[in-house]
């Protein structure tokens, strides 16, 4: 199972890198989405993949008597998803605004902040 997950992460990162290398801002953003999802899957994988039992302690006992899924990676992934979502929302609105201002989303045509210098 870990091997499949690792391959999935690798495939997603490869796709993300391909998209991020594009000059179109929107494609870069799609690459970033894919990359952050790849990282989330990686967090789940490194937190050990276990099937079944939720990490709950039975009533009347003080320690867990069975192997259970690790709750911490899930908490980390949840935090990362929330943060990634808000960053992405901002980035997409910014992209829309940039399109309104500059009429293009081609990053190599965006030379307002760094105008080409005359020799």
């Amino acid at each position, binding site marked *: 199972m870990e091997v499949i997950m690792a391959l999935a992460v690798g495939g997603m990162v490869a796709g993300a890198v391909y998209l*991020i290398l594009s000059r179109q*801002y929107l494609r*870069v*953003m799609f690459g*970033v989405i894919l*990359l*952050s999802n*790849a*990282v989330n899957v*990686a*967090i789940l*994988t*490194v*937190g*050990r993949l*276990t099937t079944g039992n939720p990490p709950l302690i039975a009533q009347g006992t003080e320690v867990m008597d*069975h*192997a*259970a*899924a*690790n709750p*911490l*990676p899930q908490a*980390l992934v949840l*935090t*990362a998803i929330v*943060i*990634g979502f*808000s*960053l*992405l929302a*901002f*980035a997409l609105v*910014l*992209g829309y*605004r*940039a399109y309104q*201002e*500059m009429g293009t989303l081609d*990053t190599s045509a*965006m*030379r*307002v*902040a*760094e105008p080409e*210098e005359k020799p």
Partner: protein
Amino acid sequence: MNAWLTAAPILIPMLTAALCMVAWKHPVVQRGLSLLGSIALVAAGGALLSIVLNQGIQVVQMGAWAAPFGITLVADPLSALMVLIAAVMGFCVALHALGDIDPVREKGGHHAVFQILMTGVCGAFVTGDLFNLYVWFEVMLISSFVLLSLGGLREQIDAAIKYVAINMVATACLLLAVALLYGVTGTLNMADLSIRVPEVPNQPVISAIAVLFIIAFGMKAALFPFFFWLPATYHTPSVAVQAIFAGLLTKVGVYALMRVFTLIFTGDSGWTHGILMVMAGITMIVGVLGSLAARDLNRAWSWQVVAHIGSMVMGLAIATPLALAAAAFYMVHDIIVKTNLFLGAGLVRRLAGGSTDYARLGGLFKTAPWLCLLLFVPLGSLAGFPPLSGFWGKLLLVRAGLETEHYVMVGLLLVTGLLTIWLVGRVWAEMVWKAPAEPPAMAISTLSFGRTYLLILPLLLLSLITVSIGLQPERLLNLAGQVGHSLTDTSAYVQAVLGTTPSPQPTLLGALETEAMP
């Protein structure tokens, strides 16, 4: 009480930001709140530093969860020093912002977002948990996105696009590095990690994760080859925002590198610190050459931010107590000087009529002689003229480099210093000695007396700090020495966080499951 004080660097700006948002429609109230919150943060930072120096490292367990399980806040000499200096910069910039920020940006929530930025910066300084560090980086990041694009000028939007794109990739790298480290050690507490990491049987994995951390923090700190976003963005937002970005943001990246590479990744230092050394050397040279090639004051200063990041990382890469002390000293000096230079460049821009292109500058001594005198302090300190603070920082770094026989790095540092003197000379010639291209716009005289005062006071304050560090370096040198020792001998840090009893070995769930199998 001490526990509250350790958490205060996070609580005070967070509360200030919340109150500013409550008073969203009343900019005047926000101004007062922002200033009060900044003053309170300086007071808390000062009190925290004095307590750390007198009573040792301060630790708070959030929610009273015992150390490796909950989030821990730690204030050691480096954290406390950085909190204090960040608070002072926050105060100076908040003061300058009162005179500088235009009504549009103020209505857009500049003061509230600025305080959130301070929350993120201070949170990154005091946290003792790696995942929590990532969260504070994100807090800092998203508020910096807003501050960068606030105002909505075309060049701001253009710069923000690049800044956002590179930082989202950096964020993913950092998150992946944190997750992988958790995967091999089963803990996220930094003190606990410093014990667990050497126990990992597969050490090459640790080295690979360390390199991922170098990449992630290197992007935040603008190290070569991840620096190109900085000169593309830092000259676009309002002056107050430029100053706080240049002063603090990249230094948080350097702080994180210093924390992680003295506490956690010390096993394979030939490899990891070697990489840092090479990156630091190239960063210095590339930064200073870029600053010489720029034909605009603000952009030259942006390149200078890059150049001096290299000097600090060089101190970290040498990693002797003296070198780490030098890095800490240099960081304090550089934060003050860069904030001052960007605030000064903002005033020069006002006087030159909205542009800092060298072609538009000139005759500053006739227009504003007092500003010239004031600007000479950070310029001289940047170039490292004795007895200003930059001289002592460079002296310490050179000594640390010579002691450990890093002659190439010392050579690069001195060449960078020389080229910086060239840049300072050129800026002085363009800005002060040259005849102005056109009659001065004299924008500053149209401001009311009170506003002029608000714009000048932070510069005066920062210049006074620079001069007093330069003339009285012993106190800061002693403090930096303590920082250096606490970073090389981390047992006090670990003991303060984890207590005297070692934490139980975490049971990795994969192992538990295989044991449970019949």
